[in-house]
C-alpha cells in the first residue's frame, strides 16, 4: 500500500501558492500520491485545475482526483481536460469519479439530479472511448487514458467499477467498512469476468496537534454540513495522533488497500511535515517494490 496526501484545495480561502507548496513538499517526501476533492458550492479550488498546477511542480507523485463529481461536467470537455493533465504530468493522472452527495451542486450546475447515475455510467463509457480512439486530442500518455476509478457505496457503484473502471475509491470510514466495501467491489469484479483485480483506494482525514484537531473537526462539520448529522460522524473519525494514523493505515493495508490518501483539515504546511515525519519514522507498511504505485491494472 502507498500512502498519499490530500492537497488543502478545499480549505476555505486557501492561497494557490500554499497548495503548490504542499505539492512540492509532498513530491520530495515518502508519499505516493496527492489527492483532491470536489464540491462545487463550497469555497474551494477546482480539483482538475489544482492537479494541472500540481503537475507542473511535481515529478513523480501520482495525481488523483478522489473524487471529481463526474455528472456535473460535460463529458468531452472532461475527457480533454483529463487527457491534457495526463500529458502535462507525464502520465501520472488517476481520474476518480463519483456522484457526489450535494443536490444543490447539481442545481447550481444546471444538471439533472434524478438521472445522475445513468449519466455517470454513460460518461465512463464515453471517456474511455474518447481516450482510446483519440477522437478528441490530446493523446493521453497512459495508453488507455488516465487510470479510471469510481467511488460510491451502493451496488451500482461496484458494478461501474467492475464494468468500466480500473479501481474503486472508498469514501472513508473505519477499516471494517472499507473491508466490507472492498469485498463487494471484488465480488463485482469477478462477477463481470474481469481479469486481475481492481485498484483499491481509501481516504481519511488527519489533524496532528491538539489545537489543530479541534480546528479540524470544525472544518469537517462545515465541509460536510450538507450531510446533516452525518457530519458529526465524519468529524468524530478524524485521525489526530501519529499512532492512530499508523494503526489506521495498517488496518487498511490488511484489508487490501493499494492507495490510502490522507487529507488535511488545515492548510498549514506544518501538518504535511508532521505527516511525512510520521510515515518516515513509523512506516505502516514496508514500501512496495517498484515504486510509484500507479496503475497496476491487468492488461
Amino acid at each position: 500500500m502507498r500512502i498519499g496526501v490530500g492537497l488543502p484545495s478545499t480549505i476555505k480561502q486557501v492561497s494557490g501558492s500554499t497548495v503548490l507548496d504542499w505539492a512540492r513538499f509532498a513530491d520530495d517526501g515518502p508519499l505516493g500520491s496527492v489527492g483532491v476533492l470536489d464540491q462545487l458550492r463550497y469555497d474551494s479550488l477546482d480539483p482538475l485545475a489544482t492537479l494541472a498546477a500540481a503537475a507542473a511542480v511535481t515529478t513523480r507523485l501520482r495525481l488523483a482526483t478522489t473524487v471529481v463529481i463526474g455528472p456535473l461536467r460535460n463529458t468531452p470537455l472532461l475527457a480533454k481536460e483529463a487527457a491534457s493533465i495526463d500529458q502535462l504530468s507525464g502520465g501520472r493522472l488517476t481520474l476518480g469519479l463519483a456522484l457526489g452527495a450535494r443536490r444543490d451542486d447539481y442545481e447550481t450546475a444546471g444538471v439533472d439530479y434524478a438521472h445522475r447515475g445513468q449519466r455517470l455510467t454513460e460518461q465512463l463509457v464515453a471517456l474511455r472511448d474518447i481516450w482510446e480512439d483519440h477522437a478528441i486530442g490530446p493523446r493521453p500518455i497512459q495508453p488507455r487514458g488516465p487510470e479510471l476509478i469510481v467511488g460510491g457505496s451502493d451496488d451500482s457503484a461496484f458494478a461501474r467499477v467492475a464494468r468500466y473502471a480500473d479501481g474503486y475509491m472508498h469514501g472513508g470510514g473505519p477499516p471494517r467498512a472499507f473491508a466490507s466495501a472492498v469485498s463487494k467491489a471484488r465480488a463485482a469484479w469477478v462477477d463481470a469476468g474481469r481479469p486481475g483485480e481492481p485498484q483499491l483506494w481509501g481516504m481519511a482525514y488527519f489533524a496532528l496537534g491538539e489545537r489543530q484537531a479541534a480546528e479540524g473537526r470544525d472544518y469537517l462539520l462545515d465541509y460536510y454540513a450538507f450531510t446533516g448529522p452525518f457530519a458529526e460522524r465524519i468529524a468524530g473519525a478524524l485521525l489526530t495522533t501519529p499512532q492512530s494514523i499508523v494503526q489506521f493505515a495498517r488496518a487498511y493495508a490488511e484489508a487490501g488497500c493499494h492507495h490510502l490518501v490522507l487529507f488535511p483539515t488545515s492548510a498549514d504546511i506544518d501538518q504535511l511535515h508532521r505527516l511525512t515525519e510520521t510515515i518516515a519514522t513509523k512506516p505502516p507498511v514496508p514500501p512496495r517494490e517498484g515504486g510509484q504505485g500507479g496503475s497496476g491494472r491487468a492488461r
Partner: protein
Amino acid sequence: MRVEVLGGGPAGLYAALLLKQIHPEWSLTVHERNPRDATYGWGVVFSDRTLTGLREADFRTYDEITGSFVLWEAINADIHGTLLRCEGHAFAGIGRRHLLNILQDRCEELGVALRFEIEVDPAGVTDADLLIAADGVNSRTRSLYEPAFGPSVTMGRARYIWFGVDKTYDSFTFIFKENEHGLHQVHAYPFNGTTSTFIVECDEAVWLSAGLDQADEAASLAYCEALFAEHLAGSRLMSNRSAWLSFPTLTTRRWSHDSVVILGDAAHTAHFSIGSGTKLALEDAIALAQAFEQTIETGPALRRFELSRRPRVEATQRAAEESRRYFEELRRYRHFEPRQFMFHLLTRSGRITYDNLRQRDPRFVDETDLWFRSAHDPRSRSSVVAPPPLHTPLVLGGAVIPNRAVMAPEPSLTAVDGLASRETLDELRQIASGSAGIVMLDHVAVAPDGRVSPVDIGLYDRRHAEVLSSLVTDIDDDSGARLLLSLAHAGRRGSTRPRSDGVDRSLRTGGWPLISASALPYAPGGPVPRAMTDVDMDRVREQFAGAARLALEAGVGVLQIDMSRGYLLASFISPLTNRRDDVHNGSLENRLRFPLSVLDAVRAVWPDDRPLAVALTASDQARGGARLSDAVAVVGALRDHGCDLITVHSGQTVYADRPNYDFDTAAHHSDIIRNEARIPTLTTAFITTTNPANTLLAGGRCDLCLLRGPHPPAPSPRAGRREDRA
C-alpha cells in the same frame, strides 16, 4: 426541563430513570394506560446476556436484573422426536413482570413520577420540553406524526401464539412437530425457576387447515397441548389473553420530530425468534440518556441518539428478518436429516458461522462433520473425526468429486483462434495440483461467433480437443480433481473487446454478426443481433452437441451448459430479452423450448455417468425480469431433462440491471434453488476463505463452492484434515 414519557414498558421506564439519574433537577413523568401489576406475555429473553452499557448506565438496576436472570448456554431442538443440543451460546431470561417491577421501583426511588391507568393523548402534550414515546408497536404518538416518522410495517406470514408452561427448560428449545395439517414449531425458554415461555408458530395454511382461525383462547390452548402432549409429558400450557398473531416488522425513517422521540417497539421491532426486542428497548434508553449527558439541547441530543443507535438497531433487524423468513419457509427444509436441519437452524441469520460454532461447541461441529461425511462419502470408514464439509467428497451424477472446492483460472486474455494459451493451461494445472475438487474453465465457446471476445477459449476444432486432452491427462496424473468445462454461446454479448478493457465494449474492427432470441442490442448503441431462425437454432444445437463430443473425447469430467448472464441460451429464458412472437415466447415452457432442446442434445452425447451441469441466472435483478421463483421452475424442467447440478448466478441479463453483490443474497439463491427444486448447486457467492464455505455446505445451502483466488499454493496431503487452506 419537563419530560413526559408515554408507555411504562422497559424502554419508557428505563429511559426515565436514566435521565433522572443524570439530570436530577428534571421533572420526569411516566404515563401507563394499564394497571401497575398488569402484564401480558410471559418471560423475555436476551439472546446475548451482555446488555451493552447496562452496567455503566445504572449499576443498581443492572445488579437486580442480572441477579434475576435465568441463564443458559444451550440450544436444544426436538426435530420430529430427534433431540439435538448445541452448547456455548449465551442466553438470559427474566419474567416480564419482574423486570417491570425492578424498573418501576428504581424510578420511584429516583423521583420519577409514575401514573398508571391513564391514557394520555399525545396531541394533548404540548407543554413538555421532551416527549418520549415508548408506547409500543401501535404507538399513538408515531401515528400522530406519521409523515415525520415515516413508519413502514411488514406483516409476517406465519401465525403465532404466546403461552406459558409450568416446566423449566435448561436451554432455548425449538420443537418441530408435524401433524395432518402440516408443520408447527415451538420457541420455548425459561424465565424463572418454575415457568417457561412457550410460543407456538405455524404458517397460515396450516393455521387455517387446523381451523385455528375459528378457535378461541381455550380451544387454541387445547389444540397445542394435544399436539405437543408427548413433549410436554404432563406439563400444562397456560394462557394469558393469548391469541394468534402475525408478527409486524416495523421500521421508521426517523426516530425524532421536534421534541418528540420514539423508543423501543414504537420505533422498530425485531422478530421474536432472535430474542432481541427487550434488549433493543433497554439499549435505546441507554443511548438516549447518553445523548442527553453530552448536551441538553433537545435537537442535537436526539440527532446524536439516532446517529449512534440506528446502525446497531438496523443490523439486529436485518438478522431478525432473516430469521423470520426462515421460520416462515421452514417447510422447504422438511427433507433435511435432523443434524443438517439443526445446523441450518443455528446458522439461519448469517450471524453464526461454522467457525463460531466450532468455538462454542467443538463436539457439535465434530458430530456434524462426521454426519456430513457419512451422508456423502460412500467410501467413508467409521472414525472419530471427519474433515470439514469442504473436504468431503460429493457423489454427482455417477461421479465422485473429491471435495467441494471449485476453483477457476483468471479469465483468458491470451487465447488465439479459441486455442487456450500455455499461460491459462499452466494455471489450470497449478490449481488442480492444489486441492480443488473441481477445476472450472468458464466460458468455452462452442463456435467462433459464440465467443465473447477474440481472446476467448473455444471448443469447436479438433486442435482445441487435443490441447484439452493433454490437460486432462496432466490433471489426472496429478490429483483427483475433475475438469469442469462450461460450454457457452455469447449471443448478443459477443464480438467485444477483451475484458481487460472493460465489459461489453464492441470490437472496433474484426467483429462478427451476432444472434440472440430477439433483435435487441445488449449495450446501448451496441450492435443489433439477428433474431434466431429455426436454421440458426439447429446449427447452434449441433454446435453444443459437437463441443460435447469433443469434450468427451478429451476426457473432460464435468460438462456445463451456460444458460446464464445474458448469453445466448439465457436470452430465450428471460422475458426482458425474449420478445419473439413464435413458439419460443410466452409461457415458461415456450421460452425454455430451445434451451431444453440444447440440453437434450448434449445429454444424448454426454454419458450418464458423467455429470452435466447448467449455469443459470437465479434472478435477472431487473424490473420486469425473471425472478427466483421463475428460476426454481426452470430448474425443475432442467432436472427432469437430466441436469445434475446448477451453477447459480444472478444479474447481467440486461445491461441496465440493478446488481446485488451481497453474500447473503447469493447464498439465499443457492439455498432456494437447491432445496425447492431438490438439485445439487454450486454457489458463486463471493467466497475467499473456508469458513463461509463450510457454513453453507453443512447447512445444506449448496453442494459446491466457487473459491476465489489468490489460489493457495498448498499441495497438501490427500489424507487427514486440511482446514488451513483457501
